């Protein structure tokens, strides 16, 4: 019986660990990877739609199915992207300006600070998106970013 109890305990811990992994929020870095991925996909959908191709809708439906989100939430994701990139771009421009002045000897603390601000933007954007989506869609999207997307984006 002790063995069995141990086994059950281990099994329980595994289940808990798996559940927590699924529920775990994406890191800002993973969220950034998703934004890049979604931007490329959105570009393709938009290009097709502009050309009047029916495949634009099919591609969008496939993405919706892949993410596991509702159509409305998919639209919210798409709408949220460019403002995030605009904020990131502002930091990037600041970083480039610093790089121009620092030359070959940048202060890594300053770079870290700039990068931290980037991560903060991503965290805030992720949180805003989460609050804007249904819990079901967000859970599905989280699972997608934490599992499927990681396979493709290394």
């Amino acid at each position, binding site marked *: 019986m002790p063995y069995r109890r141990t086994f059950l305990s281990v099994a329980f811990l595994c289940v808990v660990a798996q559940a927590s992994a699924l529920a775990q929020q994406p890191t800002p870095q993973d969220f950034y990877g998703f934004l*890049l991925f979604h931007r490329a996909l959105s570009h393709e959908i938009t290009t097709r739609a502009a050309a009047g191709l029916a*495949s634009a809708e099919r591609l969008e*439906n*496939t993405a919706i199915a892949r993410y596991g989100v509702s159509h409305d939430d998919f639209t919210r994701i798409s709408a949220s992207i460019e403002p995030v990139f605009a904020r990131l771009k502002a930091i*990037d421009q600041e970083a480039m300006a610093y790089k121009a002045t620092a030359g070959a*000897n*940048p202060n890594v603390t300053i770079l870290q600070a*700039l990068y931290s601000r980037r991560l903060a933007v991503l965290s805030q954007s992720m949180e805003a998106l989460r609050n804007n989506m249904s819990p079901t869609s967000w859970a599905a999207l989280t699972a997608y970013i934490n599992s499927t997307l990681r396979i493709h984006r*290394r």
Partner: protein
Amino acid sequence: MKCIVRSLHFVLTVALLFVSAADLKAVPCTAGTTFHWSSDVLRWGGNDVWTFGSGYIDGYYMWYWRPKVTTTSTLNGQVLFGRLNVIAYAGYGEEAVNQWHDAPQNVGTGLYGVSNIIEYLPDPGCDAISPINNSESLGVSRPYITGLNGIWWLGGGSDPANGYYNQGALTANKNCGAGDICNETPYWTVTLNPQKISLSCTVCNSNVATSLVPSQSLGDITILIDIGGFQSPAFAYTVNAPYRMSSSSPYVLDQTYQDGYWSYIYYRTYDLFGNAMPSIALNEQFGAFVNDQANNWAKPTAGGLSQYGGYDWWDNMYMYNCSSCSPPVQNPQNPLTNNRVDHAAQSWRIGSSTVGSGVLVQNNTHQRYTDHGRHTNIVSPVN
């Protein structure tokens, strides 16, 4: 003096070299920095194959690198048009992306491949890192239909329980891999002779075909499924039907029975394509009887047969146990008499034991003589 100047110049040059080397060490450009890449072929919909490669840098030194991706896409080992070593550059903090979506319906089936070289171009002073070389592939096959490739036309009505079905199940097989996304529901179309069958649904994973009229030739009906525009090969389909009856050996057998006779008229039934049909329900139907002479013979009642063994069946024309018959019934004579009693138009239908239902395959005259019976004026097939 000149020598001193030269020496000073040398010292300064060496010192500068050391400064440059120190600079390189001071900016390794990889600390806290992640070099991301992707390279894959994905089925992103029934009729969508996505080949891509991308690279980006994330971290403290992300502004000191620029990604470059060189991509070649192939199908069955052949470079897809315009896709040889396609280069994408991106600026600092951006992602370099090469991506294409192909429609297998237009481009073809087989093994889609992508080869990517993902490079991270460092700023001067940063150490170079090795590029990523990656190749991926994905097999893409057409969807297809499975199921029996034919059903029977038995004149309409419900499906008789005799193994001749006027409905057939068909299943759409998307033929997608485990990791593929083929979320579209198959769209069914009868592309050739759609008037000959009906399908139970248009957008569905499985279907039921019901016969409406017989085929003219084998496989003269074609059915397709389409997933997102990716079509299956044509599924050739046939509506077979009983077509004709033919005498089988022995054609007739006249037997003595009590005071009269049993005349067996043997037949086999054949389908549209000349195949003999084993047990299938059938029935006869009579027109008005016409007396060939004054008689009081009881008229036969039309009947049906639900099944029989093997391929042969027979019509039993009989008259016996009739002492009051006028003219009198006889045992089969040798030679048989030509003493006609009465006759009627007789028609034979296959596919149902209910009189008047099924597919009409023969018309003949049901002729009774005092000592035997015969089918005369046989017309088969009727149509």
